[in-house]
């Protein structure tokens, strides 16, 4: 495999995995939304469904970085830094959303009845 082919593969993998992570969290958000519908309690499903967008933005910025011919290394670095920042913020929000939903689930699993 040539260096260009490996480069093309890693670029595609980065972008595809970003999209798949986003989809995985989105589906999890849909599960949380069902609990919200039934129990009318905050499951942070909105956050769970929107937070992974950061991962998608990360992928998009990486596409821009890899495909656009940006000559200026400073702009390239800025683009990469922004992509990483989106990844971090997105992951933090996902973690927060999941922990909240998990907390609600735990309380429901320990529920003994209203009387």
């Amino acid at each position, binding site marked *: 495999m040539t260096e260009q082919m490996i480069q093309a*593969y890693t670029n595609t*993998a980065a972008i595809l*995995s970003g999209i798949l992570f986003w989809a*995985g969290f989105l589906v999890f958000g849909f599960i949380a939304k069902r609990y919200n519908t039934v129990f009318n309690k905050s499951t942070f499903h909105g956050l769970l469904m929107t937070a992974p967008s950061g991962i998608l933005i990360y992928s998009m910025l990486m596409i821009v970085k890899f495909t656009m011919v940006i000559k200026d290394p400073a702009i390239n*670095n800025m683009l990469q830094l922004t992509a*990483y920042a989106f990844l971090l913020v997105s*992951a933090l929000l996902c973690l927060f959303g*999941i922990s909240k939903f998990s907390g609600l*689930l735990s309380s429901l699993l320990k529920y003994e009845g209203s009387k």
Partner: protein
Amino acid sequence: MKYDVLLYEAGILTLIAAIVYMGFTLRKLTAVVKEKKLIWLLPMAAATVLAISLGAHIYANFSLLPELSAKITEISSPAVIADQAKTDIIRASIQGFKVSLLNLKTVSFSAFLLASILLLISTSVYIRWISK
């Protein structure tokens, strides 16, 4: 200090934590629907694979890249430029580092891709269970 690298690694580390938490949550959810299948292990596997990817990234950025920089600095020194044999050895060494870095990059992104696939499978299987 490479802030962008640290930012990326912090992002992946947080993502690993989120996925592990998701695995435990999925375990509770599986108990609710009384399914015996261990789909909650898929996010755990995804987290492990991501951790490997992170390890590769750390190794590349904090071990291989500094060594590669040192070699590049070395090859540009007047003493090495004057010595053709030394130049050839260092050039070969630099090429070796480049191959290693490329391999690590491939492993890292493959792991990233595999982790995302595992995560999507786990949540998709669960939502299929509760949509029948």
